[in-house]
């Protein structure tokens, strides 16, 4: 529980809390209506240079050669930047919290993995000159076969999109090919259910389409620092990312921002900050890198595509007794934030309902699409849509009113959720009741009298025994088409630990660079949804820390 220390600053604070329920003027509104709000691009600089990038026309191709001679000689061009010029040309966004391996270059060097991937940056006196020089860069490619479907990408022998993850799936804790959730015995429950319904749901990628496109203006300051006017939604996250990629101490970056012309998740990837700052370093002049609308729509990360296969067992009286969900998240060519969205998805299964037997498997899959990122509830939105459509179909199947059906299966305070968290402050029942009332939807007396505060807990708080195989594991997933090749003699399976009575979250192990091809043991039964880590290797050298992780005050290591 949060403790409020009211004794601190007591004389500086008005404890008469009276804001909720009343209109309150936004502090930035006057700036908005007078046109004085300064977005990142609303800053004037003398000698401002403009940066544009050469993008891959191929979805997947090996780069044979890059010739920038003509571009370098073009009028107005001040500098051409290539992958070799980027101090740390491989990064993954969540490395700042130690989650995932560096897998994405700032400028592609040997291979492009999606259409629109940046390869060369041109800095010129004007935007027009930079764009003209972009056309003069000669890149020769060997096109490679492509994969665009998540389930195709998981098949053995599929084209490898991103060599950091040779199985085309994000490796959780460097070891697991997906996130797994196990609660009770789904198979047994399917056998006794009156009906079983299996359906497949899909969601396309969605563009954030903020009215302001992504962009940055970076300029040298006189104190050996760089001022960075950024569109970032997470300003300090972007500062840490830029510091890491440019191998700079983060205190040499003076980020100014927080005024975002619409973000919705589309401005968390630091798409423009590192190159703009690198440009300012290399030219000693202010550099502006702004995406055009077409670049924003085509090549800046969207919300990723998702596919969910849901199989439910339901009794004639309307109780759902088993739910199995297999989810595939299309990360595109690089991880960015999809790995995290998948973790959120698994924690959200099986929705706001108490179901005694649940099985979930969720994959973060690499394909040759534009890398996906955050967007308004990502990880939950798609699976929620799927679950709620499925709920309507189930209600129809058993002949129960869909509102009543939700109240019947809703979670209540004290219930155990499938990922081993006790449900608190639940209010689905009340929400459904209010909606029914507002739209004059008739509810039965029982449904009207139901409450989230009663009827939960007790037997509904129990963690049912989880089905395991003879070695105490919950088994290799049958949801991916085939197991990956195991390398003989690779690291042994982690020892199985008996499940503790009260499951505790254990932090993931520190990231270790994989020494050999990783192997993929099945997950131990005691970890859901975050698997318990393998015991740390004694005397393992501390993982190298880049400047950003050391200096960042926001992304402190969660351990």
């Amino acid at each position, binding site marked *: 529980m949060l403790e409020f220390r009211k004794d601190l600053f007591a004389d500086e604070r008005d404890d008469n809390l009276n804001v909720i329920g009343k*209109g309150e*003027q*936004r502090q*930035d*509104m*006057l*700036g*908005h*209506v*007078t*046109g*004085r*709000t*300064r*977005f990142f*691009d*609303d*800053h*004037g600089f003398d000698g*401002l240079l403009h940066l544009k990038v050469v993008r891959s026309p191929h979805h997947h191709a090996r780069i044979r050669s890059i010739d920038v001679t003509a571009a370098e000689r073009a009028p107005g061009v001040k500098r051409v930047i290539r992958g070799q010029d980027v101090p740390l040309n491989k990064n993954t966004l969540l490395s700042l919290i130690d989650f995932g391996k560096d897998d994405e270059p700032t400028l592609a060097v040997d291979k492009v993995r999606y259409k629109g991937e940046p390869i060369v940056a041109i800095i010129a006196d004007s935007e*027009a000159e930079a764009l003209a020089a972009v056309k003069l860069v000669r890149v020769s490619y060997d096109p490679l076969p492509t994969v665009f479907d998540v389930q195709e990408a998981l098949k053995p022998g599929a084209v490898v999109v991103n060599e950091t993850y040779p199985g085309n799936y994000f490796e959780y804790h460097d070891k697991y090919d997906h996130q797994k959730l196990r609660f009770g015995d789904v198979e047994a429950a399917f056998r006794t259910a009156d009906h079983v319904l299996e359906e497949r749901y899909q969601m396309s990628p969605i563009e*954030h*389409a*903020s*009215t*302001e*496109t992504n962009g940055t203006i970076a300029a040298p300051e006189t104190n050996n620092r760089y001022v960075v006017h950024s569109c970032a939604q997470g300003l300090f996250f972007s500062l840490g990312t830029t510091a890491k990629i440019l191998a700079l101490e983060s205190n040499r970056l003076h980020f100014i921002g927080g005024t*975002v*012309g*619409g*973000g*919705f998740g589309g401005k968390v990837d630091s798409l423009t900050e590192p190159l703009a700052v690198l440009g300012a370093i290399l030219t000693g002049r202010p550099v502006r890198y*702004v995406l*055009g*609308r077409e670049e924003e729509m085509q090549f800046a990360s969207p919300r990723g595509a998702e596919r969910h296969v849901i199989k439910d067992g339901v009794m004639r009286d309307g109780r759902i007794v088993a739910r199995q969900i297999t989810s595939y998240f299309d990360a595109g060519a690089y991880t960015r934030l999809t790995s995290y969205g998948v973790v959120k998805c698994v924690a959200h299964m099986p929705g706001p309902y108490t179901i005694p037997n649940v099985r979930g498997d969720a994959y973060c899959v690499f394909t040759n699409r534009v890398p996906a990122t955050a967007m308004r509830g990502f990880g939950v939105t798609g699976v929620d849509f799927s679950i709620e459509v499925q709920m309507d179909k189930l209600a129809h199947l058993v002949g129960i009113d869909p509102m009543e059906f939700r109240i019947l299966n809703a979670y209540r305070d004290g219930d155990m959720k499938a990922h081993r968290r006790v449900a608190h402050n639940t209010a689905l029942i009340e929400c459904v009741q209010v909606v029914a009332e507002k739209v004059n939807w008739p509810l039965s007396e029982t449904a009207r009298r139901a409450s989230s505060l009663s009827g939960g807990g007790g037997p509904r708080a129990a963690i049912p025994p989880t089905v395991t195989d003879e070695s105490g594991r919950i088994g290799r997933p049958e949801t991916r088409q085939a197991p990956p090749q195991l390398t003989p003699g690779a690291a042994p399976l982690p020892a199985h630990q008996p499940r503790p009575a009260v499951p505790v979250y254990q932090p993931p192990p520190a990231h270790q660079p994989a020494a050999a091809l990783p192997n993929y043991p099945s997950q131990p039964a005691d970890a859901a949804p975050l698997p318990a880590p393998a015991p740390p290797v004694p005397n393992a050298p501390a993982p190298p820390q880049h400047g950003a992780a050391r200096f960042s005050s926001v992304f402190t290591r969660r351990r």
Partner: protein
Amino acid sequence: MARMPVQFRLNGSDRAVFVEPAETLLGTIRRGLGDFAPKFGCGQGTCGVCTVLVDGEPRLGCLTLSVTCEGRSIETASGLADGPTLHPLQAAFMEHFAAQCGFCTPGMLMAAKALLDRNPNPTRVEVVEAIAGNVCRCTGYEPIINAILAAAQQRGVRRA
């Protein structure tokens, strides 16, 4: 290419500036003259965040060449307020929560001003038509429409 001199009035003051023949009015106002109220959103005439008034008519700054503005009068959101006194549209936008990120607001205000200047008592449909070229990704338009209608009403009261 040779730069060309252009003179126009910007929010009531005479300005002279050298422009490239292909330079847009949006570029000249923002980077040339330092008035950053009109925004760049697409450069293709699809979003309306660059809307300014040229001789009272709403124009897309990103599709208007600066050289065509010789001798004209240009208005942007920076010139709406009279010192500390807000234009009724500005006050109504504040009152009705008609901006979230605020990026569409300067263009939206100018489209609305053009409407009210020529039609002081617009219907809801006329308001919707007047801002049909202005994209807002945050508010869902409803608060903006309400704000414009409220401003019209308030101006009517003041005039009466």
